[in-house]
């Protein structure tokens, strides 16, 4: 009796694993990330005025369903690093509805005054991203 129980349990477990694996594969294959539709895959990183803030196109376009002109039509220039050079790229301006604050007002998206570390990855996060980047782009020296 016991042996039969164990065998049936094992079969059920295997079946479950198969289903989960198949589902995961499907998810990955169904939605490829298209840079022409959704914007650059690499994260945008700002280091001024404070170290460091990360912006992911994927989260905002593919995730939240925004189009390019939602932001690139007054709020942000298309050229990367343009906002960083402007003197008013500050939290104060954002609280008043500028830049990210246009949506991050507590109504459309979470308020810019809350969840600071959702975008601010800090000096530690920056170091980690840079490390990951250099690991990816470096020629396969470890092989």
């Amino acid at each position: 009796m016991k042996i039969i129980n164990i065998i049936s349990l094992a079969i059920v477990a295997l079946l479950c694993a198969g289903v989960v694996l198949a589902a995961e594969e499907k998810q990955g294959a169904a939605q490829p990330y298209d840079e022409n539709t959704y914007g650059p895959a690499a994260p945008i990183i700002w280091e001024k005025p404070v170290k460091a803030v990360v912006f992911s196109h994927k989260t905002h376009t593919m995730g939240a369903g925004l189009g390019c002109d939602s932001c690139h039509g007054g709020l942000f220039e298309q050229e990367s690093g343009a906002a960083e050079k402007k003197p008013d790229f500050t939290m104060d301006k954002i609280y008043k509805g500028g830049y990210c604050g246009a949506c991050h007002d507590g109504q459309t998206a979470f308020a810019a005054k809350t969840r600071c570390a959702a975008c601010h990855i800090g000096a530690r996060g920056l170091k980690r991203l840079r490390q990951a980047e250099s690991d990816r782009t470096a020629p396969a020296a470890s092989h």
Partner: protein
Amino acid sequence: MDIGKLQRLPSEDLSAITSRERRKFLRLGLTITGLYLGGTVLSLVSARRAEAAGGPVPATGQYPYNPHYTMVLREARCVDCERCKEACKTTNHVPDYGYRTTILERRRDLAEGTYETIFMPVLCNHCNRPPCVRVCPTTATWKDKKTGIVMMKPSRCIGCKTCMTACPYNARYFQEEKRAIDKCDFCWQARLSKGETTTACAAACPADVRIFGNLADPKSRVYQLLHTPDTIVWVLRPEVGALPNVFYTNA
């Protein structure tokens, strides 16, 4: 010997002890055990003067020092820009291999399978019962009687590093150049003793995370922050019993 008289005396064996009497004795024993083990490690009876009862903030008016220098860290506002670290380095000539203050990072899982990052600034807690001072064999480190700052005199330090081991907050490092332990002194040497009113890290913080001041002054911001209704104030590693003077809150 009058056997009859003896037989009429009340029995002195265990059966004659009332349960009330037994409990009293047991309680005495447990109290003594608790006291012997430091009172904080194991006390099986309720300790009447437990310091944790009112939270980590000392009761108003019961500050051992004046000014009672304190730092309040509004943790959720910290974004790890590390301007405080840079300011500390230049102000106090901290080498690259050590720190007087740093930012730690941890993750907290959120409901939707995501997580949030929490940045935690740390520095010397200038404890009221500093374990580092207690272990120093040469009195190179001490608790300043006026300000409560845990001071350090490098010329007295023999570099035994016992204080580094004793510190529950990892707030000390060995400075090779001085051949002595170095640590945060709330900028006493670099700033406060020269008339400045705040530390370099607090002055450099763009997010208003680090608030420095005198807890003994009810008008100070640190006092106000630690006595705001409906907020939680915590300290790091309270179980050590060092009674730190660096407080954390999200008020």
